[in-house]
């Protein structure tokens, strides 16, 4: 950090996360609201680290049933079949649509896992108070923020399949419990990303205004 780099919090200033306006915080800065938009002002998102851990751990736990339990059950004249996320990818791969298998693999397996591991890494880096490579870690945070919703893909695939394949005697598809677990994982990791304050990535531990 060069000498000319002054952060707002060092001067007791705070940027409003509602409207982006700059305000001066009096004292500890509790219970203050932005004059322009009325949003509660905080130097940093309150309890950022603890809340991110809570969402993240819940996501890790639900990730297990999301992968082990069936995502959907297909019943047809030729018998019944259960599909997990991974067997769905394998099915697409073997049926010749390798490009779609790749899309589903990236959205349903690669993105959620990368996201959870990266958040874990960012949280540890904040708790250790690392200041090196803050720019790279901020970029990682931006990527996580951007890819968040794309993991919802498989939930939508199941929704459409269940609605369409209701051909009484020929074939029916029912959603499996993994759909609910997987939806919850996506929502929880999005909450975790939102709870993490990227400004903490730039600060040594003693400066944390949590």
């Amino acid at each position, binding site marked *: 950090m060069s000498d000319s780099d002054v952060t707002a919090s060092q001067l007791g200033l705070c940027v409003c996360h509602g409207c982006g306006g700059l305000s001066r915080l009096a004292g500890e800065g509790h219970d203050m609201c932005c004059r322009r938009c009325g949003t509660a002002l905080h130097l940093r998102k309150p309890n950022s680290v603890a809340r991110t851990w809570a969402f993240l751990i819940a996501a890790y736990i639900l990730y297990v049933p999301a992968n082990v339990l069936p995502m959907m059950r297909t019943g047809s004249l030729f018998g019944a079949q259960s599909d997990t996320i991974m067997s769905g990818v394998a099915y697409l791969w073997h049926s010749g649509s390798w490009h*779609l298998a790749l899309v589903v693999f990236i959205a349903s397996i690669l993105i959620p896992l990368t996201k959870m591991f990266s958040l874990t890494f960012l949280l540890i880096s904040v708790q250790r108070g690392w200041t090196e490579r803050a*720019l790279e870690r901020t970029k990682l945070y931006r990527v996580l923020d951007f890819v968040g919703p794309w993991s919802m893909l498989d939930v939508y695939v*199941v929704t459409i399949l*269940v609605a369409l394949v*209701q051909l009484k005697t020929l074939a029916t598809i029912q959603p499996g419990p993994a759909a609910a677990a997987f939806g919850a994982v996506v*929502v929880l990791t999005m909450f975790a990303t939102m709870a993490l304050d990227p400004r903490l990535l730039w600060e040594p531990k003693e400066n944390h205004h949590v």
Partner: protein
Amino acid sequence: MISHALTACHECDLLQRKPILPSGGIACCRRCKAVLFRRTPNSLDRALAYTLGAAILFIIANMFPIVGLEVQGNANATSLYGAVESIWKNDMEGVASLVFATTILIPAVEISLMLYVLVPLKFERLPRKMSAILRILQSVRPWSMTQVFILGVLVALVKLAHLAHVVPGVALWAFGGLILSLTAAVATFNTHELWNLVTENE
């Protein structure tokens, strides 16, 4: 408010002077390169046009079936709401609510709130409670997932294509247009300039 000449980066908290931007310019943080704000030429007119387009396409996309299926004389088609209903009937209320919220409710709220802000401004009037509306818009935006939904539909169609005859519905094309116009509307809807309007009118 301290000074209108200064701003702090929302991602790394660096205090810096606001640059004066040419039309179409983007101000980035000096340290972490986060986009601080931008100046969009004709922001109001363009955002309004795209949002109106998105509103019309959204209505069409929700009124007609997205896809149909034909197997040996059995035919079945579903609209978006129909899909939500059938998931609900399969005792998956949570998943149904999630799909309903991210593909119907939140995009609808997003489009209506943008119109609520843009239409009065076009007639040079400040909409009531504008700051509250802008805040709600910011908080719902990450949960609007129409693009992901359409990719999901396409994956489902390919999975079904070799089992049955798949008929793309009117809503599928409307959804395609909706993604484009909604993305363009969000890109031209300049929150920073709208907040400045709120300040000027205080």
